[in-house]
């Protein structure tokens, strides 16, 4: 029931006074309610549950998790820093 899937907000629209959007889940487009993510802009990735975006994916946080695991694997790339 708490399943939620990330998808890309392709288009934001107003529908009967509700902020809605077309969200692209790897090629499948669904109409989703965006009322709970007022900060969302087109191109953002939203976490969608039961037809509602409940958060916008923090892309830096996602990259940090992946990077931490990669370092664990001993495969970290040389950085330019």
């Amino acid at each position, binding site marked *: *029931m*708490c*399943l*939620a*899937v*990330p*998808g*890309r907000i392709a288009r934001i629209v107003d529908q*009967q*006074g*509700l902020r809605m959007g077309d969200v692209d*889940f*790897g090629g499948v487009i669904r109409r989703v*309610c965006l*009322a*709970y*993510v*007022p900060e969302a802009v087109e191109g953002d*990735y939203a*976490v969608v*549950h*039961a*037809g*509602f975006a*409940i*958060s916008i*994916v*923090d*892309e830096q*946080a*996602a990259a*940090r*998790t*992946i990077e*931490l*695991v*990669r370092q*664990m*694997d*001993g*495969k970290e790339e040389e950085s330019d820093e």
Partner: protein
Amino acid sequence: MKFVDEFRNVGAARALLDRIRATVTKSWTIMEVCGGQTHTILRYGIDELLPPAVTLVHGPGCPVCVTPIEMIDLAIGLAQRPGVILCSFGDMLRVPGSRSDLFDARAAGADVRVVYSPLDAVDLARRETAREVVFFAVGFETTAPTTAMAIAHASDLGLSNFSVIAAHVRVPPAIEAILAAPDNRVQGFLAAGHVCTVMGIGEYRPIVEKFGVPIVVTGFEPIDLLDGIAMCVAQLEAGRAELENQYARSVRPEGNRAAQALMAAIFTPVDRRWRGLEALPKSALAISDRYAAYDAIRKFNLTSARVAEPLECRAGEVLRGLLKPPQCPAFGRNCTPDHPLGAPMVSSEGACAAYFRAGRVAEATEAE
């Protein structure tokens, strides 16, 4: 898909498993709260890849599973009334009530429909003005805001033929009940990432402090779960008990304020009996007096008496993490997804269904 595939990477999984193996020196029992997490664990065989010292037990985080039988009976009764369209999420239709399920009611002529979003039910009420549209709302704090928005939207549209049977429940009282039980063996928790996406993480800090157990807010992909388990094991081995957030890409510490605000307006916390866990204080969300017109229980004067659980089904012990599904004598024999005795075998989040679908039926018979 972006933000999915990266979190199913085999090399990353191997690295996390190595980290867990290198950290573990003692036996630990960790509970993943959410049924969605249970399904990922079983689907990828994560429980079998972990070192034997780390035991995962499955929590009560399957809202369909913890909905009391009498509430399902109530929905079935309402669906059978002339002029009513009863809508719910697909999982709810196959959950056995005391005598039948909602699919049986539909086969017998009731108008029972599956919706993807509660807003679909509002849309249906807008189109079917001569009918009463009732949404049977189940789910944890992840789902409650979607029902809240449906009620607010119906109110904005001035709809008088839309109402809700609210069976929403809250996670923290269940975690407290499990930890306070004398037979508890859970030493650390993976909290449900999407519940915390809505509610934030603050509610869990008092539980960490009161019971001295680590709680790691965790996501749903295999890498998330292994990462959450690694964080939890690291705390346990170091003798720490802290609240940590593994799922930062979706969970902000304060949660989703807009969703919390509407939930607070529409719902009020009430005590509720859970299947398998008895009555838990402030564990459910009932519709507030201000929105009583949208409360199907009050609108249709519905009453229910407590119904006894079927003796053969040991869902209560499964939901408390005391029994693994294959240890139930009925599992895979007279209880299967096609002929379920209890809700955990029905729901896409139920622990029994997770084991059955992962092909873990053989281990039940081999164990004999």
